[in-house]
């Protein structure tokens, strides 16, 4: 993880320099209509979901990508526009439209709630580029969907859990039974079985169907985790949002491991439980946004879905705490095998 971003930055800076000097033909797959431009003229519009910059979560990850781009893509300017809680859908449409009308290009929408806005506005501005994070359904010749291969990151979590487990059980706690959570679970199980075909994995969901309440029930998560730890699990991977805090508490109580999700939770969780977090499956929204902007500068941007996987650095594992230092070489090797396609992870 440490080497990734720096290498990319280097690549992007180099690529930017090359493009600025030599006008290459914008080409492949729904590429930009115009010749690539230097980042000097780039005025990026970024629309946030509720919370906006400073939410220490989703939006902040996007903000980090923009900040990184501002530092490295010389002359790039960005205008960030936030959402108000409870606003009608029309205001999201207007927000994107106002940015487009003011000449901001490209426009990046953070979060699925902007899907209807992009669907409406993007066709009106065919010469401009739009991107949306985490939303596959909206499409168009000038829309890029920035998606993440959560199953690949979860595969590594399953592998790490099984390597760290003392030949006993490992657990998975999901917030609900939605397809999204299933994707994490499927990857996790594949990873564990890859390391040990006879791995025993206990799976529990905090809520049925697509009930979102499972993502904010730390008390319930704690109970479920305690039961799992007592029945022999020694590592639990939680994909349960705010409920994850309960899993960390149970892990601390039982002297066992837990695995974080989305962010490096060994840095963001309650300080009292940070040392039980073995590693975290990090989703690098910042890298996705940075890469998208770099591709715009390079003139290599494409439309449609781009899945940020292990190869593109969109999902990864964290090293904070140094708990997986002993197995890191094996994890790294596994990661490379996935990157080079020798190990296939099915999204379920």
């Amino acid at each position, binding site marked *: 993880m440490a080497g990734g971003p720096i290498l990319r930055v280097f690549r992007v800076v180099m690529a930017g320099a090359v493009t600025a000097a030599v006008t290459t033909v914008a080409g492949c797959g729904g590429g930009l209509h115009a010749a690539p431009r230097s980042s000097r003229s780039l005025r990026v519009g970024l629309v946030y979901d509720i919370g906006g910059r400073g939410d220490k979560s989703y939006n902040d990850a996007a903000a980090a990508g923009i900040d990184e781009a501002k530092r490295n893509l010389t002359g790039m300017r960005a*205008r*960030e*526009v*936030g959402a*108000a*809680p*409870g*606003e*009608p*859908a*029309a*205001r*999201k449409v*207007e*927000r994107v439209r*106002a*940015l487009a009308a*003011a000449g901001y290009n490209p426009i990046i929408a953070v979060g*699925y*709630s902007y*899907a*209807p806005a992009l669907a409406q506005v993007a066709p009106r501005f065919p010469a401009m580029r739009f991107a949306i994070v*985490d*939303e*596959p*359904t*909206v499409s168009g010749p000038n829309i890029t969907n920035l998606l993440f291969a959560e199953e690949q990151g979860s595969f590594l979590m399953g592998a790490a859990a099984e390597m760290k487990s003392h030949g006993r059980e490992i657990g998975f706690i999901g917030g609900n039974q*939605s*397809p*999204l959570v299933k994707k994490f679970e499927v990857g996790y199980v594949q990873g564990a079985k890859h390391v040990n075909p006879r791995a025993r994995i206990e799976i529990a969901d905090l809520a049925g*169907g*697509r*009930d*979102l*309440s499972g993502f904010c029930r730390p008390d319930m998560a704690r109970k479920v985790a305690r039961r799992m730890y007592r029945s022999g699990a020694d590592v639990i991977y939680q994909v349960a949002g705010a409920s994850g805090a309960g899993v960390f508490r149970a892990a601390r109580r039982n002297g066992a491991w837990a695995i974080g999700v989305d962010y490096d939770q060994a840095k963001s969780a309650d300080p009292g439980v940070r040392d039980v977090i073995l590693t975290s499956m990090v989703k690098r929204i910042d890298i996705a946004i940075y890469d998208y902007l770099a591709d715009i500068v390079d003139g290599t941007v494409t439309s449609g879905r781009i899945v940020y996987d292990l190869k593109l650095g969109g999902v990864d594992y964290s090293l904070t705490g140094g708990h997986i230092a002993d197995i890191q070489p094996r994890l790294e090797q596994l990661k490379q095998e996935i990157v080079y396609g020798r190990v296939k992870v099915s999204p379920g």
Partner: protein
Amino acid sequence: MSGRTSEYGGFLDRMLGRVRLGGWLAVAAPVIAVVFAVLITSVVLLAAGKDPVEAFTTLADYGTQPRSMALILNTGVMYYISALAVAVGFRMNLFNIGVDGQYRLAAVVAAGLGGAAVVPGVLNLVLVVVVAVLVGALWSAIAGLLRVYRGVSEVISTIMLNAIATGFGSWLVTEHLGVLTGNDLGTRPIPDDAHMPGIPLIAGSPVLVNGFIVVAVLLGIAYWVVLNRTRFGFELRATGKSESAAVASGVSVKKMIIVTMVMSGAVAGLIGMPELLGASYKYSNNFPAGLGFTGIAIALLGRNSPVGMAVGALLWSFLDNSSNQLQLLDISKEIVQIMQGVVVLSVIVAYELVHRYRLVAEQRRVSRELAAPQQAPKAEAAA
């Protein structure tokens, strides 16, 4: 200091617009309020290092474009209906804080039913509206019954019912009515033939005005007629001014409380309809929330008068809609909330000042008349 004489009412009566101002005073109060609001907002903008002139020019520019006007009307329609729902209670001293829960629950149930399309076309539209009104009325009636039979303050019960409506609504969507589109969980979309048609009210605007503007105008007229020209309205206002006096003149306060809560809830049921039948066609996580609380602010701003609330709703909607434009100027979107808060406070303060001015002026006049044959009572004028 307040309520010195019954003619001028207490502070609450004056704040809720139950005491009328006449002549030039009726004009002075809103003008003072606007001047206050502009001054305070300018100070805030200056403190934030922004140019107030640029900000107000941008606002004026934005507000005068046909497209923005249509958008302002569309949001304003929802705000106005919400304000009316709140005002019905306010006029009787009933604080229906539950308008928010009432309209959201009504919208969930109505959206689920509309998406199922049990009846075709326009009938479906009518059914959706009727069901929304019924759900709003029933949910609000719970608070009315609790107040009448158990003496539970409607402020407390409606706040709690808001929380229950949130939970109940999301349970309905996740367990029964919801379908997943991408990551968005919402009710099944209402079929095209049951949509509320838009009106090309504003020339040159590509955005149509929501058809519910007609409903909102009719509701505003009905509000005025019922309150000022019917026996029920008279009893409602009388109960609001003095419960004991109303009882003495034969008004059943219990009945009035329940009927008023039901009416307030029925109107609340309509708040989500412009969005549901004219814009989103489904209830999802993106459905506007908090409109009930906006309605409280606008009812205060408009002093419960049908015209005042219309002006307030449009002003509020204008400020909300311009937040995108202000952010393009690098002015934080929170400035809009500051402006809205300042406007409400300015209106309350300005009207109170004008009322007190009138009170003092009146007392001076009276003491002058009394002083003509004898000595002036100095103590009174010193107030």
